[in-house]
């Protein structure tokens, strides 16, 4: 199996899956992988409230706080922002058991190379870092993978635990 498999990755399908999961808020710092296919459409989507944050760890807290209120949110960020937020993710998502749902673009991932086999440290270590923190992860390669988004987010909120979706290529609009 290659990293990206055959077939396209539809941004529209991802957005619809996010909505189907009951997500009302998307908190973001722009990510070049998901900018055109997800973030711009989300920013124009009246069904989703878009909250721009200055730094990704703010978003971890906002997602957790919205969760206390019974509101579902998604944190849409880049791998670089994920690294910058590790302490917040560790404390607020993992140790406190908050359903912080993240979608992380792997900026710099080579086509048809699995993330763990990437030559770039910033790509290669994302999934192992999620694993060592015990955060469930899902690699979104094709549109079919979007089917897992709604049930996975539902489970995160049901079980009070974080989850992370990882994208290695830009979704089409």
């Amino acid at each position, binding site marked *: 199996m290659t990293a990206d498999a055959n077939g396209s990755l539809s941004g529209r399908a991802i957005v619809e899956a996010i909505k189907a999961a009951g997500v009302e808020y998307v908190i973001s710092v722009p990510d070049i992988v998901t900018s055109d296919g997800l973030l711009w459409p989300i920013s124009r989507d009246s069904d989703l*409230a878009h909250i721009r944050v200055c730094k990704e760890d703010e978003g971890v807290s906002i997602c957790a*706080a919205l969760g*206390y*209120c019974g509101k579902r949110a998604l944190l849409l960020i880049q791998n670089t922002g994920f690294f910058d937020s590790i302490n917040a993710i560790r404390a607020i998502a993992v140790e*406190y058991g908050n359903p912080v749902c993240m979608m992380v673009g792997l900026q710099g991932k080579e086509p048809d190379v699995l993330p763990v086999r990437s030559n770039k440290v910033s790509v290669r270590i994302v999934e192992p870092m999620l694993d060592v923190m015990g955060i469930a992860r899902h690699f979104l390669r094709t549109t079919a993978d979007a089917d897992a988004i709604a049930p996975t987010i539902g489970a995160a909120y049901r079980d009070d635990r974080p989850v992370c979706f990882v994208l290695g290529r830009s979704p089409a609009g």
Partner: protein
Amino acid sequence: MKRMKRDAALEIIAEHAGDSLVVAAYQAAFEWIVIRPSDLNLVATGAMGQASSHGLGLAIGRPDRKVLVLDGDGSLLMNLGSLVTIAEAAPENLFHFVCNNGVYEANGSHPTPGSGTVDFPGLARAAGYRSAAAIDDLADLESRIGDVLGGRGPVFVDLRVEQGEAYPQDYAYMHGAGHRAAFKAALRAS
């Protein structure tokens, strides 16, 4: 710099807080949970300045409730960008207090960068808060707190404080699962 006793300042805020949701960080948190014990307090904000961002999330998620953030100067310095994020979101129900003692009290009382010179209300005003003020006198706080909490947010108040009485540093409560569960239940029941 003139300073108030922190616990005395918090007692004044508590008298006017009603059933507000209150997010508190570190030393202010340890004192607040004694001064106003309530399941509507959230003191589990991780670390590194995340109280203000929790406050924003609560303010957005519960626009029907007032949300008070009792931040620290060291904490806010670790999350200064949250001032801009909060200002852009502009929640009218968010009231952001900073207990500014000029030191990292939880970590050995070393001075915070810019201690005594940084203009927190100026930063908040420049970020876009609706109003911002500094208060260093208990009588002044007493006279202004009603207007502060009766106004529209986001509001920022720099409380110039020093340590008052010693309070237990109840980290087990702060980071315990029971506290978060109680907060969630109280929030959803109210």
